[in-house]
């Protein structure tokens, strides 16, 4: 998150990448003061999934939100009027409103960096090398078919170009076993 904020000079409150903590499980106290628990927790990092069926593009009244020939979904700031309708519709919170400019902004896949042969900032920054990028079909070949996990929505909504290697304690999409426990960090 921070590499992206730093590299793109984003003001406070605008986050092109967000990491959700999905946590669940309960504690049960025994009579003798000992405990049983089934707590689980994992993180999911999402920016914009440059969807195949981008609902943000569909609903944008000015055509500011668009998908280019590379497949990258981005906002044309000259056309955007800041109505925030894309923000309402995106199930991943990708479009982020910038109060200072009055426009929508979002992850643009660091397309300027890509053009210069560099990697996106988040990919370079991740200390665990958890983020990879490339053509969707290539990623599926490398990491397996796209299986999403809670707290992400059903893929059928927008057909996101996102491949996830599920963590060992993953919950399926739609699970009610846990919830997002760090809304203040997103």
């Amino acid at each position, binding site marked *: *998150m*921070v590499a992206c*904020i*730093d590299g793109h000079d984003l003001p*406070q*409150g605008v*986050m092109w990448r967000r*990491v959700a903590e999905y*946590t*669940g*499980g*309960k*504690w049960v*106290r*025994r009579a*003798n*003061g*000992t*405990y*049983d*628990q089934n*707590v689980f*927790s*994992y*993180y999911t990092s999402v920016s914009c999934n440059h969807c195949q069926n981008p609902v943000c593009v569909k609903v944008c009244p000015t055509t500011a939100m668009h998908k280019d020939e590379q497949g990258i979904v981005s906002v044309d700031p000259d056309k955007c009027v800041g109505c925030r309708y894309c923000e309402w519709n995106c199930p991943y919170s990708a479009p982020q409103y910038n109060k200072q400019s009055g426009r929508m902004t979002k992850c643009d896949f660091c397309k300027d960096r890509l053009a210069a042969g560099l990697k996106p900032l988040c990919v370079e920054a991740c*200390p*665990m*090398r958890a983020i990879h990028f490339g053509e969707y079909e290539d990623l599926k070949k490398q990491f397996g078919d796209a299986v999403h996990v809670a707290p992400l929505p059903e893929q059928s909504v927008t057909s996101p170009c996102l491949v996830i290697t599920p*963590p*060992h*304690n993953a919950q399926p999409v739609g699970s009610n076993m846990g919830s997002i*426990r*760090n809304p*203040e*960090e997103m």
Partner: protein
Amino acid sequence: MLGGHLDEYGTYSTAQISAAIPYLYGINAGNTINDMANSKLIVMFGCNILETRQSGGGLSYELFEARKKGNARIIMVDPRYSDSMAKLGDEWVPIRPGSDGALIAAIAYVLMNEGLVDQQFVDTHCLGFDEEHMPEGVPAGNSYRAYIMGEGPDKTVKTPQWAETITGYPAEKIIRLAREIGSTKPCCVIQGWGPQRHANGDTISRSIAMLAILTGNVGIAGGGSGSAESVSQIGFPRMPEGTNPVKTRISFYTWVNAIDDYTQVTAKKMGLRNKEKLDHGIKFLWNSSGNALINQHSDINGTRKILEDESKCECIVVVENRMTASAKFADILLPSVTPLEQDDIIQQGYQVDQSSLLIARKAIEPLFETRSQYDICAALSEKIGKLLGQSDLATKYTEGRSQLDWVKHLYAQARAKKPELPESFDEASKIGLFKWFPMPQKVAFKAFRDDPAANPLKTPSGKIEIFSKRLWDLNQAWELPEGDAIYAIPVHEKTWEGPCDYEGMKKHPFQLIGHHYKGRAHSSYANIPWLEQVAPQQLWMNEADAAQRGIRHDDMVKVFNDRGAVVVRVKVTPRIMPGVLSLPQGAWYTPDKNGVDQGGCINTLTKTHMTPLAKGNPQHTNLVDVVKI
């Protein structure tokens, strides 16, 4: 150069483990993280590598890769479900802070009862396991076995039933855990620096190592000593520090005592080394780039009273580039450069699979009147030289070199070690970062394991001293406060404000720890809004405890005890044990006009009470209460 200085031993990071483990093994060492690729089972005590050893070349990635290679099952013992647990843990064993000694004693009981102790290893490599293998001059009933089986002075058998009330972890789960540890080899038992930073850290650190010893996993690939990990690195030369003719050393933690009442800082009472007592107290403090003055040291309210008394410490100089809490206590505050405004040469940090050297050139010239530490000291050496009539003092200090000259000099010395480095410093500067990998997997005490007679340990007996006669003697020789003791064997040590302080819990029912937070490095970067945004300072509180008090996630709460009060936002979560709170350490102390800390600094609540052996910091041992405000 001016005659020497009072030196120190120990650090806030590792006081207890560094002091205690050498009584077991002669030195403190562990296997390297990359060796975990050889483990079948890894049991981590308070070892949160993914949050405390990040960075691209850091141990977090190392651990991840080792686990991918070896596929070990990972069990994490921690009152908190850390990010390491989230990512890598297969099973969470939550126990009350400070109760590791009890858990391990019960595991030892099961191992002994069920024939899972590596008896051959213990008989040939260890001293003090049972009555038959004890040193001279110790009365019967003081062996480790006697302690576990209730045949010692406390007449208490360390059964899982005994341990479950202390730890909060059910007896039958302790039994299963013991069986798994006892029958899976190689098993790597490892600890972080959290368990030892307790009032009973002197014994906890040794207790954890006992699991590796009892199961014979010491000195084998995929096993470990049970202490913290070692790192293998190429050691490059550093700036010379001169020779200090003064051999007197105080425990790092007792600098406040040396200011407050130096007559108490004696060898017998406070572990003064190489001298019986101090001749005078500390009258002048020079604090460089550190926030331990006020913020990172215990009991801020108590400590600040001592520092504010100008009859005690007469002058405090602080060198800083941010207005930290410590900077606010300066009589003289010297503005220092940031890393971006100075040339430097940096060796690797906590990396295992690679070693590195970084030539860090300044990005800009120092702003305003800031100067680097080196430039400050060089200028001082000239002024002091004039005052003392030693006109060559400055030259003696600088050796005629500027800071950049020193970087070039140290680079040349590094080249002597690694001739493949470019001859031209300018070329090296352009490249900047040099890496060597992979570094070898290292197994601590392998030679000793393979042949204990030929390769004795640096202990008096040459063996692993489960019972240490030196500690037995120390307990008699030193003067310790009421309730404190030094234990010759790794026991469950009961202390003030620990998990067995039921009296204290009547007034302050919660145990408070201060985990090290991924959002900053101790207190560095706590003031960066971008980091605060994604990792805000929050008190971790269990859901059931919060519900009981009408506290909801993101509420403002006051957490307090007799030493102080802190106001902070709360994270209500199942990721921490009931009865336990965690206030991540390193937040900036920000008292309001009533002295209530608005910054969320845990040391507003911690106690100044040095541990018996290491004379170290017990900063995770606290009892508090919490209310919604």
